């Protein structure tokens, strides 16, 4: 299935060059892939995986490992950030 991984702020360093100007990284993954699987596969440093959203909905830390992605899901991840 097709999903999109979006990485922002300092996590942008983990994007391939072609995705750096959009922060969007579309990819094919196996059915049943979870949020935790994608985080592990791309070796995203745990301390930088802070705000995790699937289609804009917050996924709490305890559910990330098991949260299954479905076709066309957008997984967006930020390190700890804030503004105002």
């Amino acid at each position, binding site marked *: 299935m097709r999903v999109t991984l979006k990485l922002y*702020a300092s996590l942008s360093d983990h994007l391939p060059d072609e995705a750096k100007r959009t*922060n969007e990284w579309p990819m094919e993954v196996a059915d049943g892939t979870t949020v935790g699987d994608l985080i592990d596969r791309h070796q995203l440093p745990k301390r930088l995986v802070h705000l995790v959203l699937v289609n*804009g*909905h917050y996924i709490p830390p305890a559910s990330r490992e098991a949260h299954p992605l479905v076709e066309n899901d*957008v997984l967006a991840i930020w390190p700890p950030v*804030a503004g*105002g």
Partner: protein
Amino acid sequence: MAWTRKILRVNLTDRTCTSEPLNMEWAHDYLGQRGLATKYLASEIDPKVDPLSPDNKIIWATGPLTGTMASTGGRYSVVTKGPLTGAIACSNSGGYFGAELKFAGWDMVIIEGRASSPVYLSIENDKVELRDASHLWGKTVWETEGQIKSEHQDPQIRVSCIGRTGENGVLYAAIVNDLHRAAGRSGVGAVAGSKNLKAIAVRGTLGVGNIANPKEFMKVTFEKKKILKENAVTGQGLPTYGTQVLMNVINEIGAMPTRNHKDVQFEGARKISAEAMHEPRESDGKAQLINNQACFGCTIACGRISKIDATHYTVVNSPKYWGASGGLEYEAAWALGCANGVDDLDALQYATMLCNEDGFDPISFGATIGAVMELYEMGVLTKEEIGIEAPFGSAKALTYLTEITARGEGFGKIIGLGSKRLCEKYGHPELSMSVKGQEFPAYDARAVQGMGLTYATSNRGACHLRSYTISSEVLGIPVKTDPLTTEGKPALVKAFQDATAVVDSTGLCVFTTFAWALSDIQPQLQAACEGDWSMEKLDLMGERIWNMERQFNNAAGFTRKDDDLPARLKTEAAKVGPAKGLVSGIDKMIPEYYDLRGWDTEGRPTAETVARLGL
């Protein structure tokens, strides 16, 4: 130096400057800056006064920690009755001016009356005088600051002043110090302008003193700075990406007010985000952002210093804009960009520079342009009336309208009235996205329910800084709550409002609270200020300040009906994103909020509440 215990009172009508002792009894109940200045204002003016009349007063106020070695201890506030809203106005600025005022030996400057011709106030420690400013009238903020420094032959003078918009009565004119730090909201600059007061220029060499327990203060401020450094948000996120990092976050959760709140996501958000400011431009291969910058004593340094693309259409013939200048903050980028559907990053940088140069609030200005563009698309406003075709998304319209507002020309005069008066004038009051006449900032109340209550009940009109529940509802600081539900939000908003009222009265920056709790600020106050500064006292003080502001507004004529959101947010559901199908649940939250506050059903503090808070 905790308090200097001295107030400078300046009567512009009589042209007198007098020193008086700070009311220390009030200082123990209202601390400083926002709380204490509001106490003075509320005690000295009739809340019904015309904000632009000589009977209004305007106060520049520091807090007890301003000018000290506490991190971010450089803040000051400008407190007055605001012309945009008719409510209490309190705008907070960083930079270096606040600390300098303290170094000159003053906690506060209270300005009364109206000068018969333009003046500026010059303060050099105890040497205080009103000086002629006829030659500065008509000058921008940037010109004024430069000229005052050169006249005094002192580059270290700090200047807090108005630009042309403050002189022209733009109802959201700001007061700007250090070129691009601003007491930005609610039109405090228009009040200074109405008094013919162009600037306060200050040089202070008295240093710091009066710290109750200096050894303990050094120890505790050092410990607390360590917390800011080690916290991922205040130690890395804010210095590297600034507030603009929120652009993609807020868009992703579908809480991005777009095109005058018609939409909740902006397709161009990525192009105007922090990430875009960091990357090389296609035109010249350089990134717009060149550095971060700190206010006085700040160990976070969230400020942005940017350089516009010199070949951009806005500046190609204006070299004065090519150098490094204050860069885009999230609120400005949102208001100038998303609110109007404009995704040209350099056009936004140009507009934000003009807001700094001539001292006007980019939030209220940008949001007013959103209303203009909607009225244009409806055919209510025409190209002839506006002076340019102004559909949503037009960068050219945005930058042209910024220029004419800065200069006070043509249709710019009407834009300067703000969206409420502008929309009323053209027969569509419902299109003003504002509360109490002040425009919304950058979070949609349908997708972040607590922010709807924050806006509706903010004492200075729609504002995010009175209770930034985004911390909790979106970012999970200190705990994550669900942005889509109204449940628990009245208590959350009240807690944020009361705590922020204290922070705004200390002299510290509210951004410290991404890492510090009030209990981290408390020991710093306790070491600096004599007397008891327990958490219980601070909690009660926050509530007291909030209720005092509320009483001022009630006496000015505000009622329950003013604690409301525009119909669009209550009837037109979010079209996409997590909040799809949702409207704001404001009507549900208000009664519970009033109850928690100890107010009657009309939003007035009950006699019991007033007595409990010692008001």
